[in-house]
């Protein structure tokens, strides 16, 4: 298997910068630009570092890239972008897109996106992706010239297919349910986690008030004074410690968010399958009805009621020549239809095969990543507990000296 791009090239989104410019309607706007740096990974024997290439991209260009990839590779679970707007915030976090913490987390998310694509066996070979990383000017035109927007399925069409498809692959139906439930449960988890963080913040911060009152109290005490004063200092330390703890936890929340959005990507693959299947079923149905029409014309028997048939009975039948012409057209259409059906069937089977292969790859990646995320979360909790024990042990010692 050919090495994916990630092994041959170092990719980082190293900086973020606020920019002002004019948008399509010539109005002034503020946006953030991200610096993408790439460097070829040299073989160890050479021992010299290749030069770094870099270019600036904004979020909307990342979106364009992803849309292109989703349309061009509908059988692939395409990695998601970090959220467009800050969601699941708790009171201390800003919902402002320009907030430096949000920008920083987004920078990390965008880098993660590029690394995911570069490590994907199929996606990493895409030329548009490569140009995104290396060609600053004219990339947008290049993407648009691929005409991928035309290939995009309309949402309405997809929705229609979802409701009317008769025989989708059972595995995809199950997967669709799974991705819906996964989205639901992760959203719920993120919402509650934000509330938990908010409350925990409150608990820690109130302890800071002890610092002040112990200090004031120590002023009127003789022997107790020193112990109280120093214990108060530890309470201040305790109250301050929550900021770092919760900042670290945001990273965990971002890992969950990635898979929340991945669930949507999974859903998109299922939708594509439903659409193709529906298309196939419609084509087959159309072919069957044409064949039937042909038969009826040829044999003169009307098996199914048709208005045309009735009117021809009422107003006189068509001439044999007319009938012959009609049969000829139908036979041509039937031939075309059968060829189309054959290729659609093939397409469908190929899609199912390659999609399922990527889905299996995705499942393994998901299980691995989420396990790692849970472990790092547990480690964070352990660290928080140890800090708590430390602070209260210090305070206890101060109290013992009272």
């Amino acid at each position, binding site marked *: 298997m050919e090495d994916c791009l990630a092994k041959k090239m170092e990719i980082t989104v190293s900086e973020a910068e606020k920019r002002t410019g004019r948008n399509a309607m010539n109005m002034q706007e503020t946006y953030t630009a991200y610096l993408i740096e790439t460097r070829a990974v040299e073989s160890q024997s050479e021992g010299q570092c290749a030069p770094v290439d870099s270019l600036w991209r904004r979020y909307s260009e990342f979106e364009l890239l992803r849309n292109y990839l989703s349309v061009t590779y509908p059988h692939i679970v395409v990695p998601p972008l970090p959220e467009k707007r800050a969601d699941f915030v708790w009171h201390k976090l800003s919902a402002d897109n320009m907030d430096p913490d949000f920008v920083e987390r987004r920078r990390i998310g965008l880098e993660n996106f590029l690394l995911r694509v570069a490590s994907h066996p199929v996606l990493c070979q895409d030329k548009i992706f490569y140009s995104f990383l290396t060609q600053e000017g004219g990339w947008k035109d290049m993407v648009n010239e691929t005409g991928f927007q035309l290939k995009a399925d309309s949402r309405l069409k997809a929705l229609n297919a979802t409701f009317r498809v008769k025989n989708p692959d059972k595995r995809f139906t199950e997967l669709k349910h799974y991705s819906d439930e*996964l989205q639901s449960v992760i959203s719920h988890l993120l919402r509650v986690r934000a509330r*938990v963080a908010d409350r925990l913040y409150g608990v820690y911060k109130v302890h800071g008030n002890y610092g002040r*009152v112990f200090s004031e109290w120590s002023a009127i005490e003789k022997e107790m004074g020193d112990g109280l004063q120093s214990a108060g200092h530890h309470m201040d330390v305790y109250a301050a410690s929550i900021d770092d703890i919760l900042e670290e936890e945001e990273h965990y929340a971002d890992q969950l968010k990635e898979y929340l959005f991945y669930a949507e990507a999974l859903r998109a693959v299922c939708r594509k399958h439903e659409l193709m299947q529906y298309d196939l079923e419609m084509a087959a149905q159309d072919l069957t009805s044409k064949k039937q029409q042909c038969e009826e014309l040829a044999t003169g028997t009307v098996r199914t009621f048709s208005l045309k048939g009735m009117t021809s009975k009422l107003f006189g039948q068509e001439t044999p020549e007319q009938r012959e012409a009609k049969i000829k057209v139908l036979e041509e259409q039937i031939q075309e239809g059968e060829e189309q059906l054959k290729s659609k069937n093939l397409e469908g089977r190929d899609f199912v095969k390659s999609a399922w292969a990527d889905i299996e790859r995705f499942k393994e990646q998901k*299980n691995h990543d989420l*396990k790692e995320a*849970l472990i790092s979360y*547990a480690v964070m*909790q352990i660290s928080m*507990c140890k800090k708590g024990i430390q602070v209260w042990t210090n305070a206890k010692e101060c109290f013992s000296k009272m």
Partner: protein
Amino acid sequence: QDLSLPNGTPVDTSSPASSSSLLNRLQLDDDLDGETRDLFVTVDDPKKHVCTMETYITYRVTTKTTRAEFDLPEYSIRRRYQDFDWLRNKLEESQPTHLIPPLPEKFVVKGVVDRFSEEFVETRRKALDKFLKRITDHPVLSFNEHFNVFLTAKDLSAYKKQGMALLSKMGESVKYVTGGYKLRSRPLEFAAIGEYLDTFSLKLGTIDRIAQRIIKEQLEYLVELREYGPVYSTWGGLEVELSEPLEGVSACIGNCCTALEELSEDMTEDFLPVLREYILYSESMKNVLKKRDQVQAEYEAKLEAVALKKEDRPKVPTDVEKCQDRVECFNADLKADMERWQNNKRQDFRHLLMGMADKNIQYYEKCLTAWESIIPLLQDKPEAK
């Protein structure tokens, strides 16, 4: 001994423990004076009594002593809150120059607090036990006649009815007239005590508010945690390979919830009541200071009256002399009590705050154990199996 309710009805209880195990159960405070203790009192075994007119709780008060003032070496009687309240009033009346320890609050808002809940009764029991132990520690109050009767009498209500008619065995019953005299200025040392008590009770009030706020925030945090844990479980139900890890995290959060609940309960039951006790203590102490001011004011007023009336009388009239004695006794008693109080206060707060730190340490240790125990489950290395 027969155990009976204050009204005389016998109560079915377990027999009092033998002296040695009783000694083991009694909490021995630090002996400040270095004297050998000869009086031990404990409050325990709360019991609910349902009668036609009312429902109430009684507590067993056990005394072990070698003092001559007591007829027997051991006593075990039952008392209700009313009786403790009566005792405190009697002590305030009969020993006005001393600082009388506080009782837990008399009135509780019905409907808000369950007077018969285990937690409330236990909190009260601890406070009543502390109350009696503080009196026991006091070199003057512990010899008070009313205290003796409280600890020993089978039928306290009969004694209560006798009231003021009973002659004291210990000495003259000292009554101070609050004559509405105004003190010009409090002596420096008592002014300092007054100022100290003002600031002290202020700071305690602040600490009480902070502690309550923390408990409130913790309970709100707990509410969210209780919703948080089960979501991991729901997720686990969707997954195959991740099912066990997610269930593990869910269970872990559940354990943390339990630990947090225990912490909040402990703080409510053990920490807050003691703070409040000391605030009450400060209030009653300030009243004693005022009484002292009264006594001094009376003396100074009488002295001034004498100086104005008679010129060159070498001998001071006896009633003015008595006033002077009273002032000096009061000042001496108060100073001694303040010193004792300061020492006890330091010990009590040391114990209280160390206890608070301990409870928090225990909480974090429980959570730490929970999270550490699921790490191997999350890593789920095949080799480890």
